[in-house]
């Protein structure tokens, strides 16, 4: 077992903002990389100001979503709209292994911080640019939040109940799935650099990553010529398969049956073993042909019970079942998630955040979480420490609103 975190010694000059970019570099920071978040009062990261704030007067340093996407990072302020700011940015890049940004299109190039420029100051730099549309193509200047990315990528039309508006998956899904593609790309590039000494540029279009999550939809359309239609909560492989109403307001339990043994176990758990041999339901084909009737029988049984009771009864019988948990369930009723997955981090007496841990454990442990940085919290240690500026130079840059 190694005591070191796996990415210790890796430094990241992080120009990311909003969500998808910072959620990427948070993974690197949590696993030991020194991630320097480069931000500015001249364009405050939108996620510092939108999201969820504690009761009372919140600030740009107390946002819950910002914290959840920026743990373990250091923050500096730097005004990139000044020539001196660009010089300082390059000095940080010269001391980094990775540069990340999720600005639209050619923003970094227009600052003079494009890949060709940066490889002059650090020949083996790895640069990731991850805008919605990528860095090439006719829509390169188009922008969007995650709620537009999922629709563009087909993740609204491939689900839901037939005939209903294409609301799709929850609005910012791509912001939390795409980052793991980005981390994988960066790790592959680091591994390659370790073997060859060669850095590189990585162009990641968030919407392409999201299309990559459509599963068989693309090959099915290509091979069979049909656009896959949404199935509600049903499945082509499992019957029954869905969320069934339980006692209480908006309470549901998901139930899925695949095998013959599971089907019989379900009927027994319902107290109706004879149902298993009912000619309508005795075969998978029969269950599929009479799925509405089957759902009605199952729904009548679940409706009289608490969702957790339904889950426990069915799991004990060997049937796949799980409560449709909401946030309150996740934090107070799920017997495992609150302790295994969530952790409180505080900044003194100012604020306490409830924070997701990394879902991966390395050698059985979660990496330690340090609260997200106050904007500019690490200015002095990075400008005077890492870059070696004198106290006078530093003070002048602050006065000139370069460090700003």
């Amino acid at each position, binding site marked *: 077992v190694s005591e070191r975190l796996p990415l210790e010694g890796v430094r990241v000059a992080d120009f990311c903002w909003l969500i998808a970019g910072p959620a990427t570099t948070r993974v690197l920071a949590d696993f030991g990389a020194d991630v320097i978040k480069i931000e500015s009062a001249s364009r405050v990261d939108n996620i510092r100001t939108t*999201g969820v704030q504690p009761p009372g007067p919140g600030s740009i340093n107390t946002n819950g979503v910002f914290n959840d996407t920026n743990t373990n990072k250091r923050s500096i302020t730097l005004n990139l709209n000044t020539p001196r700011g660009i010089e300082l940015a390059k000095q940080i890049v010269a001391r980094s292994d990775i540069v990340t940004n999720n600005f639209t299109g050619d923003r970094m190039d227009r600052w003079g911080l494009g890949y060709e420029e940066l490889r002059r100051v650090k020949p083996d730099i790895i640069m990731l640019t991850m805008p919605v549309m990528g860095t090439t193509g006719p829509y390169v200047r188009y922008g969007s*939040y995650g709620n537009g990315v999922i629709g563009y990528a087909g993740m609204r039309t491939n689900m839901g109940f037939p005939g*209903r508006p294409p609301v799709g*998956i929850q609005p910012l899904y791509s912001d939390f799935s795409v980052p793991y593609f980005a981390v994988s790309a960066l790790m592959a590039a680091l591994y390659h650099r370790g073997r060859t000494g060669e850095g590189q540029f990585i162009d990641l279009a968030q919407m392409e990553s999201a299309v990559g999550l459509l599963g068989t939809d693309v090959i099915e359309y290509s*091979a069979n010529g049909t656009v896959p239609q949404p199935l509600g909560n049903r499945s*082509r492989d499992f019957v029954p398969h869905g969320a069934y109403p339980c006692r209480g307001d908006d309470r*549901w339990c998901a139930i899925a049956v695949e095998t013959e043994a599971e089907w019989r176990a379900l009927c027994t758990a319902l107290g109706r073993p004879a149902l298993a041999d009912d000619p309508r339901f005795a075969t998978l084909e029969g269950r599929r042909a009479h799925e509405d009737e089957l759902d009605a029988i199952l729904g009548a049984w679940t409706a009289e019970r608490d969702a957790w009771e339904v889950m426990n009864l069915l799991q004990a019988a060997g049937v796949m079942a799980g409560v449709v948990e909401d946030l309150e369930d996740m934090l107070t009723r799920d017997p495992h998630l609150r302790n295994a997955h969530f952790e409180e981090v505080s900044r003194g007496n100012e604020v306490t955040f409830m924070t997701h841990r990394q879902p991966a454990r390395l050698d059985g442990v979660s990496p330690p979480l340090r609260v997200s940085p106050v904007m500019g919290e690490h200015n002095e240690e990075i400008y005077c420490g890492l870059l070696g500026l004198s106290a006078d130079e530093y003070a002048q840059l602050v006065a000139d609103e370069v460090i700003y």
Partner: protein
Amino acid sequence: VSGLLDGIRVLELGDEPVLFAGRMLGELGADVVLVEPPGGHAARRRQPFLEAPPLNEAAQAGESLYQLHFNAGKRGILLDESTEEGAATLRRLVGGADILLLTGTREVLAERGLDYASLSAAHAGLVHVSVTPFGSDGPMREHRANDLVISAMSGLMCLNGMPEDPPNLPGAEQAYHMASLVAASSALIAIVGRQADPEGRGREVTVSAQEATSMATLQTANANHYTWHGAVPKRNGLGGHSGRNLFQCADGKWISFTIPVGQGPLWGNFVQWLDDAGVPHEFTEEWFDPAFRQPRQATVHEAIERLVGGLPRDEVFHDGQRRRLLTMPVNDVADLFEDEQLRARDFFKPLAHPDLGRSFEIPGPAYHFSAAEAGITRAAPRLGEHTREVLEEWLGATSEGVA
């Protein structure tokens, strides 16, 4: 051109939740070998199936497109783990692997001799990745779950759909995808850590699919909504993360339309668009203030309805983007094949089917590297197609005891 992960060997032994992880590692250039039991991996029996009639005798009618998609880029071997020889061969293959991809709790893996403690003693460099629905330790470790049950229990499912409908299951098994994304990225984090470690030590990587999928709730249902305010976010239909987001255009297609959050020029761009399109509105100077707009959102939504209701979807998309208003189309798969951006970037890739004499289109890689080519370079394996080849390459000899 060689891939970035050239030289990395991955042995994949898991169920559906790690199929996409193996596919991702293959796309990045790793040598991914899928180990299948007699009768084949469960993926071969998953829908959708190929409907086109086979063009020659070697092709199987009703072949699983699920298998063709998720196992693309991998080699496949057939191995009967229940025989003594098969188990011994498996152990030798693990000895040659950099990454082992598994599903199951520590306890279940230990029964097969595939737990980290058993394997790492002889192979300290191994990166051992196992995915479970609910972890190896918790009170639900023995609960059984498919994608639906994990989506439900992760908090993701309750956020999807119209309020009057049941919560909607995400399309295309997103819980499995999240588990695989976390598994693949964490495996590579461990590989990078191993490369930097003078002793070259691997790691045990464990991933709970429930936790992995819960990451997708981090904004919409951020935990602090509850801890600070007692609020419990639910599915909100046409709404986005700030105000109503979905609108239907003149041609019946849908547009995602985000009203600019900030003050200033973007609101002005919207009002200008209404004027240019001749759509009547009441937006005087005070409407430029977001605080004034906030309680009057319904009026804004009605104006958007009037605007987009008179225009075809693609015109709203492009005109809106030119006005910097973050309009985005709601596409289906057929739309994606017509999309000019994806075409210009050559996103969809042909994948030749080995027996049919035709190619299928598959999604391209999620990234472009300047120093290497990423992508799928071979079709999904036939059952046992590469058994002899892999044993020769990995073990240096043909081996007995393989099914």
